[in-house]
């Protein structure tokens, strides 16, 4: 063969890195070490003697922890190889994780947080020494108040679901402050709201009422009204829902809740298509939360840290978690939580890394940029919807013929009935083409679901590439289903068995448990798994 080279195919020929990397414990060579520790100074040794020998005997660890012993470069190499076996959004067209808003996380924002003036400051330092951090919190709170239309903001919640918890904790405290804590013991949510709305409200002690969509896929206002009563503490809804459908009667939902004395809580995890378009306040909500790691482009960190901004009306402000940052005479001061506050929800002021990243993202875009980001996210989504529906076997249940906001919950039901290939199997095969693909949150109300959310960050060419891969896999499902069923073929590892993961006798959640259960190798410091346990 000689030049010219054949043109590129779409989807591309991809192969994920595959280092066949051992578990870190298998790299251990006794006597090696990865880092040197600063020694105990002679002056200290002279003053305190052999501090470990002087410990009460039962407080001295009998055997050293069985951690591996590995020289530094090999530790580095091991983890860099693992990183290569991971498909971050910087590498793929990360539109397959709908509901999660995988945007481009600007590299400059990662650099900005690395300054010692952020990385190496302590929350109990003299506030005169942390004015910059406090100002950053104060500024982002002001921006989030404008973006939501709400009166006051807290950035203390360390994740999206943590922010949902903060919402319901405030709602509970509000009703208790009015003597209605016991009376109001129900929370109403919708099935296409994020599961944490239901789950967090349950932890707070509420009974959960779940409203299902009407025949057109819109949240059922009639069902809501039937469920509302003087026992309702709150409605907790995501809008647009995880189907990408915006509830056109959202104001009526909020008004109906208010009519029975309930509060309205808005999970704004899906706000990426509505920044500058419509605001929580305009629909009458009392509390809401935004996810800084979604809508405001902070990275997802392989599953956290995340961060939320909780925004509330003036009536709910006293219930916000603390500490709060206030501006007094041009200086920024820290106020501990007041009497009505739900108190602290996390250490210090929340995830400052994401506060700075979100602030930098907003400041890079401004009003026009955020509006454009929303509009392009929505354009991308509706373009993708059109292209996906061109693939035989794919559908988008509900609201047929209507536009969607920033994401769509699709279905492969037709393809499944024809070929027996499930959405999950299609997802695994998609990875062979270098794409992440997720089915959807349970329960699968939409059969054989998948949820795509293209955000504003991916070019038309990338969306086309993703659709080409989807179409290719759908074709394979018809023409060569075994190829799909036995996927993955181009991944770090091959098809993984799952039976042991649900079997307590066999599951291996740590290396030491694996060695004990499957090789009979028991650590010197093993505790008989059942000996001390109570609650029998």
């Amino acid at each position, binding site marked *: 063969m000689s030049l010219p080279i054949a043109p590129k195919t779409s989807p591309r020929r991809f192969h994920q890195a595959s280092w066949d990397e051992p578990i870190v414990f298998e790299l251990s060579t006794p006597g090696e070490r990865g880092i040197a520790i600063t020694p105990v100074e002679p002056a200290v040794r002279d003053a305190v003697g052999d501090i470990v020998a002087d410990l009460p005997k039962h*407080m001295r660890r009998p055997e050293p922890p069985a951690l591996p012993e590995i020289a530094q470069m090999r530790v580095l190499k091991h983890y860099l190889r693992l990183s290569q076996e991971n498909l971050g959004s910087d590498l793929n067209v990360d539109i397959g994780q709908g509901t999660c808003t995988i945007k481009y996380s600007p590299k400059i924002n990662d650099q900005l947080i690395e300054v010692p003036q952020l990385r190496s400051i302590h929350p109990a330092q003299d506030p005169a020494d942390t004015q910059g951090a406090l100002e950053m919190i104060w500024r982002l709170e002001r921006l989030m108040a404008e973006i939501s239309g709400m009166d006051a903001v807290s950035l203390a919640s360390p994740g999206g679901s943590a922010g949902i918890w903060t919402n319901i904790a405030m709602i509970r405290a509000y009703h208790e402050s009015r003597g209605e804590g016991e009376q109001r013991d129900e929370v109403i949510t919708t099935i296409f709201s994020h599961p944490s709305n239901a789950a967090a409200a349950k932890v707070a002690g509420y009974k959960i009422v779940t409203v299902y969509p009407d025949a057109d896929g819109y949240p059922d206002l009639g069902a809501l009204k039937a469920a509302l009563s003087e026992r309702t503490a709150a409605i907790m809804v995501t809008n647009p829902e995880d189907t990408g459908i915006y509830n056109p009667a959202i104001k009526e939902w909020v008004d109906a809740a208010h009519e029975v004395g309930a509060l309205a809580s808005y999970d704004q995890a899906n706000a990426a298509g509505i920044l500058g*378009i419509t605001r929580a306040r305009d629909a009458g909500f009392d509390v809401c939360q935004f996810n800084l790691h979604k809508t405001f482009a902070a990275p997802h960190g392989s599953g956290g840290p995340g961060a939320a901004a909780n925004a509330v009306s003036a009536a709910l402000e006293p219930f916000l978690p603390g500490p709060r940052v206030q501006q007094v005479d041009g200086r920024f001061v820290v106020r501990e939580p007041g009497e009505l506050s739900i108190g602290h929800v996390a250490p210090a002021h929340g995830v400052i890394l994401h506060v700075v990243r979100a602030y930098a993202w907003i400041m890079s875009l401004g009003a026009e940029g955020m509006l454009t980001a929303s509009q392009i996210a929505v354009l991308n989504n509706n373009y993708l919807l059109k292209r996906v529906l061109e693939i035989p076997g794919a559908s988008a249940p509900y609201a047929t013929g209507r536009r969607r906001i920033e994401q769509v919950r699709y279905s492969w039901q037709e393809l499944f009935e024809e070929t027996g290939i499930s959405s999950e199997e299609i997802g695994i095969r998609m990875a062979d083409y270098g794409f992440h693909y997720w089915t959807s949150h349970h329960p699968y109300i939409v059969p054989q679901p998948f949820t795509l959310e293209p955000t504003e960050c991916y070019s038309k060419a990338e969306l086309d590439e993703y659709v080409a891969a989807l179409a290719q896999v759908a074709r394979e499902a018809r023409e060569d289903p075994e190829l799909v069923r036995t996927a993955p073929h181009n991944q770090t590892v091959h098809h993984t068995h799952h039976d042991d993961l649900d079997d307590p006798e066999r599951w291996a959640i*740590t290396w030491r448990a694996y060695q004990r259960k499957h090789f009979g190798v028991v650590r010197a410091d093993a505790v008989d798994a059942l000996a001390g346990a109570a609650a029998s």
Partner: protein
Amino acid sequence: MKDAVTEAFVHPYIPNTAPAVKQAMLDAVGAESVEDFYADVPEDLRLRRPLNVPAPLPAEQDLARHVKGILAANRSTEERLSFLGAGTYNHYVPAVVDEVIRRSEFLTAYAGEPYEDHGRFQALFEYQSLMAELLAMDVVNVPTYDGYQAAATGLAMAGRLTGRRRVLALSDVLPEKLSKVIDYVRANLDIEHIATTGGVADVDALAAALDDGVAAVWVETPSFTGAVETQLSEIADAAHAAGAVVVVGTDPVGYGVLTPPALQGADIVTGDIQSLGLHQWFGGAHAGFIAVHDDPRFVMELPSRLFGLESTTVPGEYGFGDVAYERTSFAQREEGKEWVGTAAALWGIAAGVYLSLMGPEGMREHGELLLARTRYAQHRLASIPGIRLGDDALHLREFTICLDGISAGDAVSALRREGIEPGVVVDESTLLVCVTDTTSATDIDRLADALAAVATSKEESK
């Protein structure tokens, strides 16, 4: 209706704004403008004005100058001599840890499957496994938000396991942590604090308080004041005799030398891993662990994800997957165990790298260094006239000093003028002082000399 997008608006983070591309996409879907897509948003809910936010700084160097300009008002603990702890600790972070967690394959990944994200699953399985060795327990979760949440969930698990309501808190708990825990569990649990004696648990008072309504006995070690609980075995025996679960909140930093709680009867061990390879970040970089024995009754109460080892179709290949996924709120919404969401996985990877570097010898030396410097600092400060130790308990990293003749707040103000943060004010006369591997003997001497000068000047002015 006029398209609100300025045709010329192009931002480096947003492709598809080029007029030709945008028009082609609109044509493809048969839309006049992007306004068509918002047909379901009622007009009276539309914000028909630009958001009132500052003018943007789209040029990277302008943005960097602006943000750095704000942060420049901060003075870091590299510029101050800090003895601040109380939940956020200034430990050295090995360069390799930062190198790994900055990798964008880890930093920008999220919820990939065990195939395209094999590396994330393995790194977190290894984190679970390394923590398990340090804690001498067989099950550790993928990190939750922080040590506050870990303790709260540990207690909630005990409540579900026993069906009881009472929690006996035997230690001095960081007030902010206690605030979180109480509010989190109060629908199902009532927390009763049993006053400590000499900084640690009052075992006699525990015995008197225990009955068959106690779900959990909660021990913090090191406690808020840095006191290490040395009677955990006795506490656990008493708790177990009453059918209660022993829940421990801890910092794992000392377990290279100290006996881990699992070997003294703890059933659920929780804590924070900020000490294991994370910078201080203004208290904004925490992650929580929950460890249990490999007992399905306990494992099935964990809300967090658990990554397990699995076989693949290829002999010798390691695969991974979610253990007992049906527990979770992802699978069962409100019928799952509490909830699971985006929490702190990257910090788990960081702690895994940290423990891989440290090894058994590193953790032993580190633990010894912390114990030795703590004792040294206690010696130095307690020898100053007008200063005494808050208690005689064994302490790790933190301890309280009581000041006579000068308020703790005044002492802090005086030392801040010399660039020293001497500790966190606990009350009018008490300071919580923290030493780490970054506070050398010379630094501790400087603190002692400065505190002595303040105490002496007060003596003289009397």
